[in-house]
């Protein structure tokens, strides 16, 4: 059974862990804010997706990989990325009902409102899921790869 001592040994020091517990939720919330307001202020799906991936990277760096995988496992990351890709393709194929591939089928609302601009907010969310899942999967693969375990060709 893992004691509290084992939990203290991996990851970084206690100060880093306390600050991470306070700030990782705010970083995730900020990333989601940038994604949702992509059509009103600078940012969009790509920047927001990278910020969401950075919040998970922050967890892995501060707490060690064993405890960070409790929040989001490797198979969960792969599913997140695939879900984002499938969602983006669904939105693009739904444009067939409006005429041709990738038409904006939902109505344009009022300018400057949060629920406006047709399918653009949905596409932003799909891009955020794909970018966050992809970048976190790349980081996990590089963390798990141990360069000194095998020698010789």
């Amino acid at each position, binding site marked *: 059974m893992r004691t509290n001592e084992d939990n203290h040994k991996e990851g970084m020091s206690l100060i880093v862990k306390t600050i991470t517990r306070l700030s990782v939720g705010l970083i995730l919330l900020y990333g989601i804010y940038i994604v949702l307001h992509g*059509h009103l202020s600078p940012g969009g799906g790509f920047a927001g997706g990278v910020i969401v991936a950075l919040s998970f990277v922050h967890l892995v760096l501060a707490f060690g990989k064993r405890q960070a995988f409790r929040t989001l496992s490797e198979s969960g990351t792969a599913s997140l*990325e695939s879900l984002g890709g499938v969602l983006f393709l669904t939105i693009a194929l739904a444009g067939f009902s409006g005429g041709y591939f990738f038409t904006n089928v939902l109505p344009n609302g009022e300018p400057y409102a949060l629920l406006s601009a047709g399918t653009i907010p949905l*596409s932003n969310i799909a891009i955020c899921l794909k*970018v966050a899942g992809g970048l976190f999967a790349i980081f996990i693969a*590089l963390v798990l790869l*141990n360069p000194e375990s095998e020698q010789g060709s």
Partner: protein
Amino acid sequence: MIALYAILVVMIIGAIIAIEARDLLSAVIAVGTVGLGISLVALVAKAPDVAITQLVVEIISVVILIRATIRIGLPRSTHGSKPLLGVVALVFGITVLVIGAMAFAEIPPLGAPHMRVSETYVAEGLEGTGAVNIVTAILLDFRGYDTLGEATVLFAAAMGVLAVARPAGRRKTETEPNHANK
């Protein structure tokens, strides 16, 4: 425009330090300087989307690069160079600079772009899509195919990293307790 030239000069100095430094960790930090310089240039040149994206991408890129270079007990990094190819690269560089100087006399000067295609995008951006951010409207509505291509490339790169970084012969006693089996 003094700020623009100052940032460009600092970026070139950072690039020279990154190429010539003997310690790998110093080289990685110098490359972080180059990326931060691009973010500052994008702020000066009125491009806020590019500035935000380049800043966060540079942060995660430096984290990934440090993962490859931090090692406990790594011997001093090899710092040799190949002189013949160095001369070839120098000749190539001078040729590119000369041809570039001749080419830059033809394109419009800094600060007065032609904007033949973008006039349509700016004029009918708000009525066509309803989005206030013109760059997002271009990325996701007028030029949605490019975003689909980018999603495909990102997926292929993630699959490539997972295929390369899979250790051959993983020992069964080391699997994590939360490894979800489908």
